[in-house]
């Protein structure tokens, strides 16, 4: 097991939405510590607030209340530009629908975060090819996303999340749009990343996906209701 450094520390995280003159809490006060190198699965039925939690963890969104310390830094105090830099350098995000830019090639998609990290073009290409090789897609580097299968697209998206060498990989239902075979391939990639020492957080509602993680969290009505180790089958519904 990796060292006991705490990467993510949430205290009383709330996310409130205003619908008409009613306030609805998507997250109702979440306390959570995630250690460095942990492989965590976030489970829950749709509407439970797990995606909202994921967006806050990924610094895409800000909590309405509470404290989120990422590597000891309070995220609430960061400016928009600092948040952008955090997303760029510390976190690699994988989406359910891949979110690749359709007009540019796989390798250019992978290199995109490096553009915003200020890396020179030749170096960008080299590093993008390196991670594409890691996910086994070096031979598809110059294909556009619409020429790739779903599993291949998701691997490109994972390569993109990895290219800037972030400590944390977050994936929001990465296998939601994939068939069984592609799902297995993608999960193997995440397992490998975990073995390489990365902190991996995975949102899913499929128990067999969650089984890959060493820690399973169940989110229900904006709260974490269960926190289990490996081997326990959490029934989402």
């Amino acid at each position, binding site marked *: 097991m990796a060292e006991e450094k705490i990467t993510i520390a949430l205290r009383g995280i709330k996310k409130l939405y205003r619908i008409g003159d009613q306030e609805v809490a998507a997250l109702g006060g979440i306390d959570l510590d995630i250690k460095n190198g942990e492989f965590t699965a976030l489970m829950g039925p749709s509407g439970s607030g797990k995606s909202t939690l994921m967006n806050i963890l990924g610094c895409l969104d800000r909590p309405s209340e509470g404290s989120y310390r990422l590597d000891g830094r309070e995220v609430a105090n960061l400016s928009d530009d600092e948040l952008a830099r955090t997303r760029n350098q510390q976190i690699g995000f994988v989406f359910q629908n891949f979110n690749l830019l359709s007009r540019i090639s796989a390798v250019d998609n992978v290199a995109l975060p490096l553009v*915003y990290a200020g890396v020179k073009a030749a170096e960008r290409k080299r590093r993008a090819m390196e991670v594409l090789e890691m996910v086994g897609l070096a031979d598809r580097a110059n294909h556009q996303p619409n020429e790739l299968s779903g599993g291949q697209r998701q691997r490109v998206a994972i390569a993109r999340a990895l290219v800037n060498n972030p400590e944390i990989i977050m994936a929001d239902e990465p296998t939601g749009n994939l068939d069984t075979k592609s799902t297995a391939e993608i999960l193997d990639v995440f397992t490998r990343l975990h073995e390489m020492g990365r902190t991996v957080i995975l949102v899913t509602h499929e128990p067999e996906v969650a089984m890959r993680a060493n820690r399973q969290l169940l989110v229900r009505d904006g709260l974490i209701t269960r926190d289990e180790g490996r081997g326990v089958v959490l029934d989402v519904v």
Partner: protein
Amino acid sequence: MAFSALMANKMRSLLTMLGIIIGVGAVIAMVSIGMGVRNNIQQSIASLGSNMLIVMPGAENRTGVRGGAGSKTTLEDEDADAIKAKIGGIDNVSAMVSGSYQVVFGNSNWKTSVQGVSPDYMDIRSLEVESGIFITEHDMVKRNRVAVIGSTVSENLFGGSNPVGQNIRIDNQPFKIIGVLKKKGQSSMGQDQDDVIIVPMTTAQERMLGVNYVHSINVQVSSPDIMDEVQEDIETLLRQRHHIAKGQEDDFNVRNLTSLMETMDSTTAMITMLLGAVAGISLLVGGIGIMNIMMVSVTERTREIGIRKALGATFRNIMMQFLIESVVIGIIGGVIGIFMGCTLSIAVAEFFNFNTVITLLPIAVSFSFAVGTGLFFGIYPARKAAKLDPIEALRYE
């Protein structure tokens, strides 16, 4: 990156650019045509003679019936001599008499204007002799029957052959041709300036017209800045010489060609500006076109913006991406516009046989204006894009 985004929507980018292309092209073409008109007018006025004052006799006023300007016979050759001798700031003075005569050579004949002038006249009107020589002081003193003919006269009497040394008959008197003038073309008033015969003034006065007055005195002033002073000096001198008492009307008047030139000049400058302004408006419309398309583009690419932001693009990154795109439209449109504008003005010059003047200034101004509109009208959509919330942008379908 900007290029690939523009290439992805070729037709749309092209149509957007078209606004800028037409705007820039129109500014350049209009201004160069306007400047061409201005140049033409300047040239034709300059060909009348630069810095020229013309002294004409006043109108006859006998028993209340006034004749036209120049109907008096009060102006004399001596007045010209006095002006030359007593007034400073003058380069050349030539008195002039003229008449219309039938001219005969062999079996061809031609009616033309015969002008009696002094040798100074050549410089005043900036005439050039193509072959032979101009009339000399010696011809003036001797009242020689010599003539310098314009090219129109030469063509009509001699066809292609060289007229110098030939004898023609003007008013039934033999004149020897000593020179042919270089072609000057039409004046701004549409007169053929080459349909003329020049003879010594004294010859014309005594041997042809039988008069001792002159029809006009042409004065060339050395600098355009002192035109008004010289004009006043001439008026004072002539009033003295003609014994005109205070309060009495002048029996002559002095015309100033520079003021005519200035009026024409400012008129054409205004027309040029007006044309340029109208063309400038089309450039503005082109700019609004850019803004319109950029707004559509931002909405359409909301998802892309969300992805970029999720991957770490800052406000500035997104802002720059869209700004560069709209500036690139401005630059490409501007370059094509310059090309089209120059082509158009050259084509106008070619097909309508019309001088156009392409200068750097309208090109530079309209190009920077094109890039400027790209920038200015790109700011709002680019800001809109950069301010998008990543979560909401990613959710956008």
